[in-house]
Each structure stands twice: as structure tokens, then as C-alpha cells.
């Protein structure tokens, strides 16, 4: 632990820390462009120059390891002059187009030019001009503004694992581009926009849309995947303008996936903003809330409780699910399910459906087995963590399921699930690796668990975990990777069939036979709605997607940006999403709609406010009381040891960009999807 003196203050920093980090420790602010904590050190912008005792010239503090006894001066006249000089050189070729630059107001160069630069330019020659580069539908480039910090190059190479960004040319002619201007083919590509310290890489969908100081910033939680990435929603008036990542070391660090960032334009399209009722002629017509409620009440009172069913969707907040569950409890129906994809998970034991290792725990794993999942698509930001673990430790990683490029090398064990049996018996080569590992991990994806033999796969995976000592006092290597943001909350509160109740498959089957008279779809769009031809379907949600098309009554709800709500990510971490805008038109928060219906049915639910509802929820399910933390969960036997089918394992999502009602309505996501298909078809043509 080296001790050094910075501006007369003595600090002690960790081994391997740089002088720049030591200066920050001592409270000295060091300007920088190329240095970034999560990327390798480049040392090419020279903005972080400081004086070191006995050094003949200022040193680049980001690239200098802190040494014992160093005496650093960050406030000397020479440092000031050096910074001014570097800034002047950077501005030689940087256009002064801040008024038309989207980075304006949140630009490192702008801020640091104010703080450390000269007041005026001495440069009167022509500036260099650089042509724009194509990087796909998400990233807009104005390469004349580029200062060649190479943060984007390092990000795509190191973090994203798609090294198709680079710097071509030399000296004054260096230009950042992708190989032959192909798309930046990564699920994390848009993070380079945040990393860019100037306005060279900006957001294409957000181009010329708003200025940062006009936006209301709300800290919330993402629901595009089940990670629960921490986001900041920037809204102006009634519209969400953009989504940015928020730092959370335990979950998404400071990255978010492209879907998290850009699916939000789907919030403006295909919205349900008023209740609808299907008339006798079979057409949906807008009606008042009262008429919609009356229609539901009439129908429900006539229906036997065994013929009522409710299915919760993948992006629903815990409050709405709990309200609907309470209502169905009161109605005496146990046909409720939150597992649209038919995942064979039970709600009995928390450890059996959680990502027990936790996302941060991935960093410590020393052998990883992935079954029926493509983490790059299902949880892109988490996949970057697995990649980092591989880069740091050369961790052996094996995959059972369809072959895929996960951005790190994997041993592909085939798509046949029977490999699991060899792994249990310990005969398989990878079983020995798991056995030898101190902190082995297994990741079970929905591709494996949604199969008919999902319970057996769960059981056999649990047995592998037991046999290879995956579960100890300090480590639990058994993980289920969910793709639905609402799933864990649903399982936690028991939004699954009760005694004699039917699950999603059972509900669909009964409905097809005409035995399920009334089905309440709470934002459920991923099921086959053709089975509901003879059922009365209530669709409660925010988008006119599959569920709404099949509905007899539509109750317009709020999307995740329009309500306060609790979400539980796949680790079992309860987090609070916050409202950034109001729901459009007459749409209301989902729990309030269910509460209103309950009154029309004379089964009034015992809460009048979201706070009262949450109290009720916490009383019923205590795990909701603790926010932002992962509670330890008990380990026991679960799953069934049964026959495995010989069908090949699939991955639960076939593509990344359009996976929910919001992203399917998003033009940006559609453009991304198309550009990927165009790229792959042109490859196939070759």
C-alpha cells in the first residue's frame, strides 16, 4: 500500500492504483478525457498532467502507478500551463459548434475547457474536417469533433467483446471507425455514447431532440430484461426522451443494454389510452371506465370461480400482481399464473428460482456451466461480467444449448440435455472441472426450464450443484436466469396456481375447450391468444399488442415509466421503480384499476393507496420489505428426478431487440432488428 503526498496531503492507496486515483483520494480534481475506471489505460489525451517531485517534466497521472513516497503537486503554475497547453492543442481541431452539438451541456470537453483552458483561441488556420462514419441505427457520428481518446475502441474491445471499432490512419489523419463502416454489432453498443467525452458519438434517435437542462430526471429501474438495471429516465412534459444508466456496482455497473436505452420510443406508439369494450358486432369501441367496469362486473358475477383465470405478464410491477392475486383470492379462484413461457418453476423455495450467486458474485466464479440460455441476449450487461471474469481468470465456461457467440470462448457440450446425466455421474470431462473448482456456477436458462421436462432438468441441475459442492456457507453457485422482469416478484408472492388451480398451459387448454369463461390478462402478450375465442378476455396493459387484440374489455394501464412500482430482479433484489411521466389519456396505474374493479364486484380490496397496498404486500411477503439488497435464501432439495426428453435444448429468446410489447412497438428496435437481419443475409449471400 503505497503512501504518497498530494498537494501536502498524505494519502495511502491500494497497490496498483495510479497517481490519478491517489490525487482523487486526496480530494484533488484531475481533468481527463481518455482515462476511465472500467477501461484499460491509454494515456493519450495528456489532460491529466501533474507535477511529480524530481521529475523533469509533468507526468501523465493516469498512466503512472502510485509509488511509495511520491510527492505530487496538482496546483503548480507548471501544471496549470501544461493543462492549458493540452487543452489548446485539443481545441485546434475541435469545432466550436457547441450550440448545435447534442453533447452541449453535458460535455467533458466543454466543461474542462471552461475550467482549465485559455479564454480565447490563438489558432487561425483551417481546422481539420473528418467525414461521418456509419455505425448503425443507434449511434450518430460527427467525427470532426473526435479527440481520439479511444474510449469507444477500448469499450467495444474489452467490455462488449465485439472488437470491430478501431482507429485507422496515423498522426493527424487518425480516424475512429468500424471495419468498413459496418454496424457496431453489440447489445451494449450505445454505451459508447456515454463514454464519448465529446459530441463525436451521440445518440441517433435522440439527435436534436432536447437539451439536458430541459429534462426532468427520475431514477428508476429497467424492465426490458430481468436484471433490474438501474436507470435514469429523462422526461420532458409527458414524454420520455431518453434512458441513461445509473451506477450500481452490484448490478449493471454503469452500462445498460441497447434495448433498455432505446425501446422507449415504443412508449409513444400503439398505446392504450382509453378503455375499450367489444360490441355485439365484434368491434372494439372506446367506452368510459364505468361502462368497462360494469361490463366486467356483470360477466364476472355470472361466472363460476373455477372458470376464472388470470395471467400476469413479464413487465408488471409487484403491486399490480399482488392486487390481482388478492382479488382472485377473494373471488375464490386459484387459476393464476405469472409464468407465461411455462417455466417449470415452483414458488415453494426461493433458492430454486433465484440467481443465487448474485450478479456481482460472477466475478469470483472459477467454472461456469450455462444450460439452455444465451446470456448475451437474455441479460446483455451481465454477459459482459462473465466475459470480464473469463478475461481475468481464463475461467472454463461450458454451454449446453444452441451454439452461439457469447463474446468469450465456451466449450459447447451440444444441445442434447442428456449431457446433464453424465455431468451428475461425474464421468464427463466438465464435471471434473466443476468438481475441482472452488466457486463453480451453473446458469439455468428459460430455454431449459420451459420444456415439459423442466422440473427434471431443475432437479438434475440441483443434483449437479450438490455433487460438485456448488453450495457452501459462503457460496451458492446455483442460478436461474430469468428473462421476465416481473417473474421473481410473481413467484415470491405466489402468483402461481393454488390448490387445484391451472397453470398457463392448463388455462389455455381449458379455454380452448370452452371451460375457461373469463381470462384476465395483466399485460400478458406472450401467449397464444387464439385459445380464447370462446372466453371473455379482460386485457389490462399499456400496449395494443397480442393480448389487447384478443380482448373483450381493454383496461388501459401504465407502462413502467409511468408508475411507482416494485420489481424483483433475478437475484431476488427488490428495487423501486419511479414514475417519470403520467400515463397517457385515461390510462391509470394498474393497482388502482384492479382496486376499482374489486369495488364493482363488491369484493373491495383493503387498500386505498399504493402505500397501503405495499404495507399489505410486505405483511404477506416479508421479503418485499428490504429494498436494494439480496437476502440469503435457504438451500434444500427441489426439482424432480424424472425422465429427460431427447429434444434439443433451445434458447428462450431467438433475438435481442423485439421481445416485449414496448420493444415491438419501437421504431428504433425495429431498425436495429432489420439491420442485423440485413447484415446476416448479406453474409449468407456471400
Amino acid at each position, binding site marked *: 500500500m503505497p503512501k504518497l503526498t498530494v498537494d501536502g496531503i498524505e494519502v495511502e492507496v491500494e497497490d496498483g492504483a495510479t497517481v490519478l486515483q491517489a490525487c482523487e483520494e486526496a480530494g484533488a480534481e484531475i481533468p481527463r478525457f481518455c482515462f476511465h475506471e472500467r477501461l484499460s489505460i491509454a494515456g493519450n489525451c495528456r489532460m491529466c498532467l501533474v507535477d511529480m517531485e524530481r521529475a523533469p517534466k509533468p507526468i501523465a497521472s493516469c498512466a503512472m502507478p502510485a509509488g511509495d513516497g511520491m510527492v505530487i503537486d496538482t496546483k503548480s503554475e507548471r501544471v496549470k500551463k501544461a493543462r492549458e497547453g493540452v487543452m489548446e492543442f485539443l481545441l485546434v481541431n475541435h469545432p466550436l459548434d457547441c450550440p448545435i452539438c447534442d453533447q452541449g451541456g453535458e460535455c467533458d470537453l466543454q466543461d474542462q475547457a471552461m475550467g482549465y483552458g485559455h479564454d480565447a483561441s490563438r489558432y487561425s488556420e483551417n481546422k481539420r474536417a*473528418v*467525414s461521418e*462514419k456509419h455505425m448503425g441505427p443507434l449511434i450518430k457520428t460527427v467525427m470532426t469533433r473526435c479527440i481520439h481518446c479511444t474510449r469507444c475502441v477500448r469499450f467495444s*474491445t474489452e467490455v462488449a467483446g465485439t*472488437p*470491430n*471499432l*478501431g*482507429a*485507422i*490512419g*496515423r498522426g493527424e*489523419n487518425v*480516424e475512429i*471507425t*468500424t*471495419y*468498413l*463502416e459496418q454496424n457496431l454489432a453489440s447489445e451494449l453498443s450505445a454505451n459508447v455514447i456515454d463514454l464519448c467525452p465529446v459530441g463525436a458519438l451521440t445518440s441517433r434517435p435522440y439527435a436534436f431532440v432536447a437539451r439536458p437542462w430541459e429534462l426532468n430526471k427520475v431514477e428508476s429501474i429497467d424492465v426490458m430484461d430481468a436484471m433490474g438495471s438501474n436507470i435514469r429516465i429523462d422526461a420532458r412534459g409527458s414524454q420520455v426522451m431518453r434512458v441513461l444508466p445509473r451506477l450500481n456496482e452490484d448490478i449493471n455497473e454503469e452500462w445498460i443494454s441497447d434495448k433498455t436505452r432505446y425501446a422507449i420510443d415504443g412508449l409513444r406508439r400503439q398505446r392504450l389510452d382509453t378503455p375499450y369494450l367489444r360490441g355485439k358486432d365484434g368491434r372494439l369501441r372506446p367506452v368510459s371506465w364505468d361502462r368497462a367496469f360494469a361490463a366486467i362486473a356483470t360477466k364476472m358475477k355470472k361466472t363460476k370461480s373455477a372458470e376464472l383465470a388470470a395471467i400476469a405478464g413479464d413487465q408488471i410491477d409487484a403491486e399490480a400482481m399482488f392486487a390481482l392475486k388478492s382479488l382472485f383470492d377473494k373471488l375464490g379462484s386459484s387459476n393464476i399464473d405469472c409464468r407465461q413461457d411455462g417455466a417449470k418453476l415452483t414458488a415453494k423455495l426461493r433458492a430454486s428460482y433465484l440467481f443465487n450467486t448474485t450478479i456481482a458474485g460472477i466475478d469470483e466464479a472459477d467454472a461456469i456451466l450455462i444450460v439452455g440460455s444465451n446470456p448475451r441476449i437474455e441479460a446483455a450487461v451481465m454477459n459482459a461480467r462473465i466475459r470480464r471474469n473469463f478475461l481475468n481468470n481464463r475461467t472454463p465456461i461450458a454451454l449446453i444449448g444452441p451454439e452461439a457467440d457469447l463474446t468469450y470462448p465456451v466449450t459447447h457440450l451440444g444441445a442434447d440435455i442428456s449431457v446433464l446425466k453424465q455431468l451428475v455421474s461425474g464421468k464427463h470431462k466438465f464435471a471434473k472441472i466443476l468438481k475441482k473448482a472452488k466457486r463453480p456456477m451453473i446458469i439455468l436458462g428459460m430455454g431449459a426450464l420451459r420444456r415439459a421436462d423442466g422440473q427434471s432438468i431443475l432437479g438434475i441441475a440441483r443434483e449437479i450443484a450438490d455433487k460438485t459442492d456448488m453450495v457452501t456457507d459462503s457460496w451458492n453457485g446455483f442460478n436461474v436466469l430469468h428473462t421476465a422482469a416481473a417473474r421473481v416478484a410473481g413467484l415470491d408472492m405466489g402468483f402461481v396456481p393454488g390448490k387445484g388451480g391451472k397453470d398457463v398451459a392448463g388455462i389455455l387448454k381449458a379455454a380452448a375447450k370452452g371451460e375457461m369463461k373469463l381470462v384476465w390478462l395483466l399485460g400478458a402478450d406472450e401467449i397464444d391468444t387464439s385459445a380464447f375465442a370462446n372466453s371473455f378476455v379482460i386485457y389490462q396493459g399499456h400496449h395494443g399488442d397480442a393480448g389487447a387484440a384478443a380482448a373483450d374489455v381493454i383496461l388501459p394501464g401504465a407502462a413502467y415509466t409511468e408508475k411507482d412500482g416494485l420489481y424483483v430482479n433475478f437475484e431476488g433484489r427488490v428495487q423501486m421503480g419511479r414514475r417519470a411521466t403520467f400515463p397517457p389519456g385515461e390510462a391509470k396505474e394498474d393497482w388502482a384499476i384492479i382496486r376499482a374493479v374489486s369495488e364493482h364486484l363488491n369484493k373491495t380490496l383493503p387498500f386505498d393507496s399504493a402505500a397501503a397496498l405495499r404495507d399489505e404486500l410486505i405483511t404477506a411477503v416479508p421479503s418485499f420489505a428490504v429494498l436494494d439488497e439480496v437476502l440469503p435464501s435457504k438451500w434444500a432439495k427441489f426439482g424432480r428426478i424424472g425422465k429427460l426428453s431427447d429434444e434439443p435444448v433451445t434458447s428462450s429468446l431467438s433475438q435481442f431487440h423485439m421481445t416485449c410489447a414496448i420493444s415491438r412497438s419501437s421504431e428504433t428496435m425495429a431498425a436495429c432488428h432489420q439491420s442485423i437481419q440485413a447484415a446476416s443475409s448479406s453474409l449468407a449471400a456471400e
Partner: protein
Amino acid sequence: MSISTLIAENQPETFSFTSESEAEIKQQIAKYPAGRQASAVKSLLYIAQKQNDNWIPMRAVEAVAERLEMPVMRVLEVASFYSMFNLKPVGKWYLQVCGTTPCMLRGADDISRCIKDKLKIASGETSACGKFSLLEVECLGACVNAPILQVNDDFYEDMDYQATARLLDELAVDNKPEFGSVIGRQGSESEDGATTLKAVKKTASRSK
């Protein structure tokens, strides 16, 4: 200088190494420890360039990347960094004029002027006949016999306007004269003959 101006407009559909190139590649990769084969990237690019009329098409960049298990962008970065690599077709005679201080002081401008007069091309251009390409480069490392004109792999030293004109005339009819100093300097002695170590008996002179 976007990528479209950096590389050739007409790219060949395919590229594959010849058997001679393959042998050389094997030799080059063997110089580096296992797993560090990417160190051979410049050698392989040069082999590809030699095989392909002194320029590197993108298919060759991709072939090198595949051979060395490198991201193709990393190979393009290297190929675009060095002036030694041509990403566009060049003429049969690829002329490189050194313009760095010693050559400049000894009359490099005359060489450039002669080439401009005779071939009507500037740095980075190819003559109308397609036979000659010119690039002004930084130090070629032969300052002792400055100024230098490099033709393909060979140095012509002590050049002036007339010597350049004569050389270009010869090259125009595909006749490549002996390379080396055009004023007959053997080592790097003074232009007016050796001035020191005169007492030392001359034993053998370097054969041309």
C-alpha cells in the same frame, strides 16, 4: 480520409495465399511464441502485399486476421498506419521520395520536381500510363547517400534532376538499372573521395 478514400474502390472478390507465401508465413509465425502469433501481423501483411502486385485488398486483410486469430479491425489499423502498406493498387514502379531534412538539404526537391515534370503526378498519385506511383515519405534511413529515391524495394542514392530523368526513362521501357549510388560512391565516403584514414591500405571494395 474516410475508409472509402483509403482503400481501393474495386476490391477483388477473393484472396488466398500462394504456396510460396504460405511457406514464408509459416516461417514468420514460428518466430513468435505460441499464442503470440499476432506479432507476425506486419510480416503477413507484407507477404500479402508482395504477392498481390504491391497492394493489399480487404480480402487479404481478412485473410491475415483469420490466420492470426485477430479481430479484422486490428489488422486494418496496422495496415492503415504504415505507409509501407498500400491499400490501393500502385503502378509497376512504386517510387518513394524521401523528403526528410538530410535528403531535402541535398536536393530531394529536385527529384520530386523531375517526377512531376515527367510523369505529372504528385505524392499519392499514379501516372496516366499506370506504370508509376509516387509517395513522399519520411526518412528512409540512408541519409549518408542522400537524397534517396526508392523504386519498389531498391534504393537509388545521390540522385539529382538528371539522374532521376534518366532513371525514369529506363523504367518507362521496363529496364531497371543497377541500384545504389548513381555517382559511384562505394561506402559512405565523402563525395570528393575519402579524406581520412588514407594511410590504410585498401583491401577489397564492396562489389556493387
